[in-house]
């Protein structure tokens, strides 16, 4: 009986506060369980909770996706949030995970076709948000890297490199990093929605949408969140590492582009490892490698 009451109330609370209760069976059932308060009818009581739930979802999404919110405007973002809340009820007590399905959801919304870069921007903002609280795993030290290299070189099929737990590769045909930066308060990455709208528009107008795709790595070095641009030649290898490919597979990937590599690496030697080692030295220098892990045999 108690369960049924809470379930009925939960269903009613989660509904949009603007629906007409007379046409709404869920509301009707809930209203039968309520008494009026001195200054609030039962229906108004229900609306308070509906507004509170809608407001808390909107606040959570706005905090995770501030640039998306700024790009589409308050009313549109509220509409998206409402639809998202109905399509993706929260199944976890952590409010920080409330936006996990948001990028794929906005990609499905036809009415956002005029903002084609919005799903990619949502992916970027979600990666930024997730990197903030990702597990701590400092970049490899030089000594540790040397020790690992010795072991790994003997059994390349059974080892893989790992990126920092915060790392996420994002590729977009749109200049999302420039758009994102146009909405920042300063270089530290503080989001500043109150920023002068004219300045944002001016910055946005200077962005050329016919530029090359953005290949980005969002990650956290110790406490500092970063977005690094990834050069095209590094992208296949970096995404292969992200997807958990073994070092043997990375070598195959490397040999496919060996000619290109040898052109780029003046000191490239005949060894199969050497071109990859050059790349890994570069990744290592940038802090992109957090270690190696053994693949379960």
């Amino acid at each position, binding site marked *: *009986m*108690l*369960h049924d*009451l*809470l*379930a009925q*109330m*939960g269903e009613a*609370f*989660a509904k949009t506060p603007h629906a007409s209760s007379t046409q709404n069976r869920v509301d009707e059932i809930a209203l*039968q*369980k*309520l*008494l*009026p*308060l*001195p*200054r*609030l009818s*039962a229906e*108004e*009581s*229900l609306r*308070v*909770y509906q507004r*509170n*739930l809608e407001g*808390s979802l909107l*606040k*959570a999404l706005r*905090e*995770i996706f*501030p640039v998306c919110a700024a790009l589409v405007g308050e009313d549109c973002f509220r509409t998206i949030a409402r639809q998202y809340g109905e399509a993706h*009820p*929260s*199944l*976890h*007590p*952590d*409010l*920080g*995970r*409330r936006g996990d399905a948001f990028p794929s959801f906005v990609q499905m919304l036809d009415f956002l076709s005029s903002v084609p870069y919005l799903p990619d921007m949502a992916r970027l903002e979600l990666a*930024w*948000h997730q990197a*903030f*609280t*990702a*597990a*701590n795993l*400092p970049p490899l030290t030089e000594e540790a890297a040397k020790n690992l290299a010795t072991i790994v070189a003997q059994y390349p099929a059974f080892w893989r490199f790992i990126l920092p737990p*915060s790392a996420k590769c994002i590729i977009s045909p749109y200049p999302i990093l420039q758009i994102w930066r146009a909405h920042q308060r300063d270089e*530290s*990455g*503080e*989001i500043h929605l109150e920023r002068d709208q004219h300045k944002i528009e001016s910055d946005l107008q200077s962005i050329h949408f016919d530029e090359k795709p953005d290949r980005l790595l969002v990650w956290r070095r*110790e*406490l*500092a*969140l970063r977005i690094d641009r990834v050069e095209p030649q590094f992208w296949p290898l970096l995404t292969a590492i992200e997807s958990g490919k073994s070092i043997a597979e990375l070598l195959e990937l490397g040999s496919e582009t060996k000619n290109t590599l040898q052109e780029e690496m003046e000191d490239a030697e005949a060894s199969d490892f050497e071109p990859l080692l050059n790349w890994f030295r570069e990744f290592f220098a940038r802090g992109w490698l957090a270690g190696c892990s053994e693949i379960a045999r």
Partner: protein
Amino acid sequence: MHAHEASRDLSRAQMEHSAKTPLAKGRVRGVGLSLRSKHYRSILESGADVPWFEILADNYAFGEGPPLHFLERIRERYPVVFHSVGMSLASTDPLNFEYLQKMKQLIERFQPEWVSDHLAWTSIDGRYFNELLPPPFTEESLNNIVSNIERVQDFLGQRILVENASAYLAFCSSTLSETQFIAEVVRRADCDLLLDVNNVYVNSQNFGFDPVIYLEAIPHSRVRQMHLAGYTDYGTYLLDSHGARVSEAVWALYEKAVALMPGVATCIEWDNEIPEFEVLFAEMARAQACWNRGESRVA
């Protein structure tokens, strides 16, 4: 707490600070503040003269990175208590032991003086609302919440505090008053009480009861902490918004509360439209003056 409030540019030296640093000793006493990420730097750089902090544990239980880093630095200097919103004690859902395990790990790491949650439900049938929802005041609801509190206390290995929640609706099925319900919960579950004075006032206005009679009716010996916060007046109801200064009416009620229950640690909560630290500090100082008057009456 959310990602965009906090620092992103701390040095390696700060990051490498050992996680096994000593924790500040001392009792949670007087008036403290609810810790907000916006104030990490102000607190650490100024060495703010705050007796203790209340930590919203949910903000730290599910990740690492800067939030945990700053919490460690704060904990080195200040005693803390934990407050949470996700236990869903009034729900009929099975307790979420994954969540409770995270809480337990955080408790072991930071050793708060106590842990609190709400007399409310936040989930049903596996769906989370991320909002504190009121239970009906019935015998069935009472048994359910008592059972959940007992199991949480067994799991955490300590007595917890439960907070009276604000509400904007009344169930037809309720057969007990709010104070009867609370008194029975505390007695049967052998738990303590976190008295939110603002919630008492908000509910008194929304439901039309005398808040002083409410204060007199609750089990004083079980009140281990109080909350003060600001509400928003929407004309036909007051909303427990935690986004404003404590109202004069709530200050007056707090004077009565400290007279009835002197020496109870009190925390200023401010979760929305969070002001500069100085504003919170001023609220804390005012509450401390009230708290001192309560103590001096006893003396």
